[in-house]
């Protein structure tokens, strides 16, 4: 009985820890409420074969910079997955970020507006899946606050605010886990990852910034427990991000190449520092291969 309980705790911890590894969560933009963006989407049917080609969407419907500026994490979280995909494909990688970013996550939603996993299961069981999915989102938000990018080292670490749930999975003393203070709030730094420019698993037309946990045991400060959960021996977590605008990135998290959820990352300081110049001409530093399809950068409609 006791063993069964311990196993349950362990499995719960593993699931939660895998979420930590997937994304960093946290605060939303601390900005006045702004009008939602007006972004053109090309509607598709339900089947994969009806999804419009990203090259065509981008060619016909580039997102004006003025609309990029209006995108918020909350706006993205309210979209169907196909719409999120159509936005992601029209972004470029931008610069590899530097510094601490606040995060938020959201699971894919189908055309019914409920979680895609819930749609697949359907019926009452589907409702249960929807409920559990929402609980997971909330739990993630309570635990994880964001990511910290060390651009020069091409390394990233995740900000974990509450280690209580993960404690069964963490061996040794908590005292030797490095911490970070962001806006007067302490967080532990766990789950390191490598940063590089690489292939998007959704849209090959240009590279994304990849956050790769597979070989994080190479990195300084790696501790097997719990960091292994995200590595090649664990859930094989791989995130990719593209820049919405300076300081704001949209990401996709994968487990062993299988898409799991979306996330956003936001850094107010960078947004305020680099935002105005971006607003003016849409130009931003590109650290990654930007492809050869001509991008039509509309300052506004």
């Amino acid at each position, binding site marked *: 009985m006791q063993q069964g309980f311990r196993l349950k705790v362990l*499995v719960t911890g*593993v699931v939660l820890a895998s979420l930590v590894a997937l994304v960093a969560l946290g605060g939303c933009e601390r900005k006045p409420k702004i009008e939602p963006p*007006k972004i*053109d*989407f*090309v509607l598709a049917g339900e089947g*994969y*074969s009806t*999804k419009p*080609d990203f*090259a*065509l969407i981008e*060619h*016909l419907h580039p997102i*004006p910079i003025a609309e990029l500026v209006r995108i918020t994490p909350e706006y993205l979280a309210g979209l169907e*997955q196909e719409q999120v995909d159509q936005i992601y494909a029209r972004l*470029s990688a931008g610069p590899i970020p530097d510094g601490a970013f606040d995060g938020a996550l959201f699971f894919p939603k*189908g055309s019914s507006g409920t979680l*895609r996993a819930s749609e*697949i*299961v359907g019926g009452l*069981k589907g409702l249960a899946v929807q409920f559990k999915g929402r609980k997971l989102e909330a739990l993630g938000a309570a635990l994880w606050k964001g990511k910290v990018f060390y651009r020069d080292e*091409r390394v990233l670490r995740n900000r974990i605010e509450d280690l209580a749930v993960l404690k069964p999975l963490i061996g040794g003393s908590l005292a030797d886990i490095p911490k970070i203070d962001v806006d007067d709030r302490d967080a532990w730094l766990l789950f390191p990852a*490598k*940063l*590089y*420019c690489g*292939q998007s*698993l959704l*849209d*090959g*037309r240009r590279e994304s910034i990849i956050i*790769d946990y*597979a*070989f994080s045991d190479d990195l300084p400060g790696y501790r*097997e427990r719990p960091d*292994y*959960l995200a590595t*090649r*021996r*664990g*859930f094989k977590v791989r995130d990719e991000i593209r820049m919405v605008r300076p300081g704001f990135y949209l990401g996709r998290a994968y487990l062993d*190449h299988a*898409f799991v959820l979306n996330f956003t990352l936001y850094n107010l300081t960078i947004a305020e520092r680099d935002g105005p110049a971006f607003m003016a001409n*849409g*130009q931003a*530093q*590109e650290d*990654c*291969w*930007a492809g*050869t*399809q*001509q*991008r*039509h*950068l509309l*300052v*506004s*409609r």
Partner: protein
Amino acid sequence: MDGIAVAKNVITRNVITGVITKDVIKRVVLCLGLLVVAAPPHAEEAPATQPAAPPVAVVTAQDYSAGFRAGAAQLDPSEAAGREIWYKATAGNSRFHTYVFQQRIGVLIDWYRVLQSAARDDRFKTWGLINDPDCCTPGSEGCPAKSLEETYGFDWCPGDDTLLKFVGKPDYRDPACDFQDAPFVTGSTGATDTPHGTPNGSGDQRQSPCDLEFGTSTGALGVRKFPNPKFDAERWRAANGGTLGTWVGLDGKLSDDPKNSDAKVSHLSDPSLEPPFRVGLACGACHIAFNPTRPPQDPAHPQWENIVGLVGNQYARFSEIMVSGMPTDSLEWQVFAHARPGTTDTSAVPTDQVNNPGTMNALINVAQRPTFANETVVKWRKVDACATGEDERMCWCEPGRTGKCWRRSSQPETVHHILKDGSDSIGFHEALQRVYFNIGSCSEQCWVNHLTDLRVIDPQQRGYGQTPFDIGQCRRDCPNFRAIEDRLPNLASFLLSAEAHAADLHVARANQREQADANAHYEYADLVDDLEREFGSGAVTRGKTVFAENCARCHSSQGEPFAGRDFRALADNGLRADWLGNDVPTLASEVGTFRCRSLHSNHTAGHVWQEFASETYRARPADPNNPDPNGGGRGYYRNISLVNLWAHAPFLHNNALGPELCGWGGVGSYEFYRNTYVDADGKQLATAPACWPYDPSVEGRFALYKASMRELLNPDARPPKITKLNQDIVIDIGPKLWDGAEEQRVYGLTLRVPAGTNAGLLGNFQHKPFIVDLVRSKTRPEELEAQLIETYGAEQGRAIAGALRDIANQVIDDPSQFLAAVKQRLPLLIKAYSSCTADIENAGHEFGRDLSDADKQALTAFLATL
């Protein structure tokens, strides 16, 4: 209404404009002036739409070998230009073979294992690659490079004095920038199928040759290298034990302990460690071969005179090369790394989940190849202009050019049937252009987004299945596409040049004798005498009659009557008039050969290469005698050419008929040969016929031809062949914890597919609909059963539904029983979820079975003269 018009209609109808207010419209109008058309600044390389940055270093004429240039001595400028492109141009695919395949597709290539200079002498017998005569191993006599440290472990090749300076640096000026284009010839816009036609417009508007992207040789012909600007020498040195001259830090396994999962892992799957070179492929990688009439004395050290560009490399192991970084117990290695030498599964990357390796087509006497009139072809055709406001998905002019325009339309056309099943049938030029997609060009811009991602199992998600490649989009967005397209006339003229002329056995023997004695002569009559000595008096003459009566209806490009025909007669162009194949599609069930290749589905409607097949192809009726899903173009083989059959054994589209070939005599860790011989029950023979080591000599080819002919004409004497897994496939699912000494599974399971399983069983299994149906058996059982009954009939439909339900229940109880549960119900599941159920790979084509022994001998003698 064609597909594009439908798409346009749908898109127009479905665009969500959001809340478009008057204010928005006003702002759109006001801000039109703020439209900026720009490619974002590149971090690592300049956009390829313009010629590269000003020259940093010039590749001089001496970088090009005299031997290579001598091969073009008899060619006109267009043919010579086409030859150079064929041998060297990668059209940007080094990104595919360095990044895309590994990261997006998830399959690892170990380029160092394939190309390391230290193993140069073993390269041919291991990988079937042909060593570049102009390259050398650093430190060898006369080699400009003195140590492997200088070349990062690769061969030194011409142009490397410049290239090596740019490893880890930007602004490499590709040698293709100095490519000498063939003279511009003013041509009409309609001259798309004229070999010497030119790009449209009145002036030379060809895309910059820089976008051909030559790089330099890796030491293996057709395999090219490029300096990687993202390479970090210090990091490389640290990963490689302090040296630059090896890649063991990239491809070495992380653990020696077989119990540790890291024993199967290397940094090949860690893209943060950038190699010094990106590696790309030219068309020649598969097609450059030893000249059958002038084979090298030593295959590891050929000279340029031993090499031709078009007959196809019968020894190349590209399937093995493409998965060379995968563990041998992985699904990828076991299912794909078994293609016979000289074959590769070209629908493995754009996968159709049909396990179907085929030979590199031998391009011989191409000018005589049959064409087919009045096929309905939808494609882009050159025009002088598009109407103002015309939808650019129907008519498009290249910006910045004058009159370089194309319009998409449906017209009757005279076309070739190129691929084994007759697909690639919208025109000679377009078929040539598609070769570049096959080898990875424009993958990111144009086609990886259209592929099936084997891990996506939600039918609503992109990547669940294929969607059609869009030629117009690729032309617009990929400069490498345009660089090739603008030079297709040159490539076409090369394929029609003397380099593709027949290589007859009597010529090969004459060359052989002249090497020993400059005054020796050997003519066609001498060959006939020799053949008749070996196969019986009058064998060649009798063989011609046997051929006319039994074979010519498929294997002659001349019409009936065949009696009395001279199959060796010359056409006005000096080539043999008969192509010895009519290219007419024949039902695979009629030929009886291994049908999986005929079920290739990438050219069917809605699939990735849809735009490269004619409507006539797709209108071919389904075969009622084929038990597997077919129709929509599938289910046929074209009747192939027998020109120079003496040099191209083993036979059939998969090289399965005849002795099996091997590089190392069947032994050794680099021997990829698998015993495929089975008994009547499909069980692997413990004592199988030995494989034949590669022997490209004249007599080696002829011996192989005779042995293969014996099997062809005596079907009962063919030992059946089925490719099996030669090692268990092991798939670990779930996390493992490393305690510093040992790895412990936290939870999850290990799936194990046993050695001896038919490789095709896995390669053809449509796992996605199976998984979807497995889920539906629990979530929507009535709907699933109704659908299965409609497809398979009441009895079988219910049985399949029941099997799925039982498997789902069993897996919920105990996930580790997944494979066992599937295995128990395999025949039913194969019926429902396999794309091809054929297993014997060397079956069929039994048309010579009933000939007398004498006639079989005669036919063998006659075919050797063609």
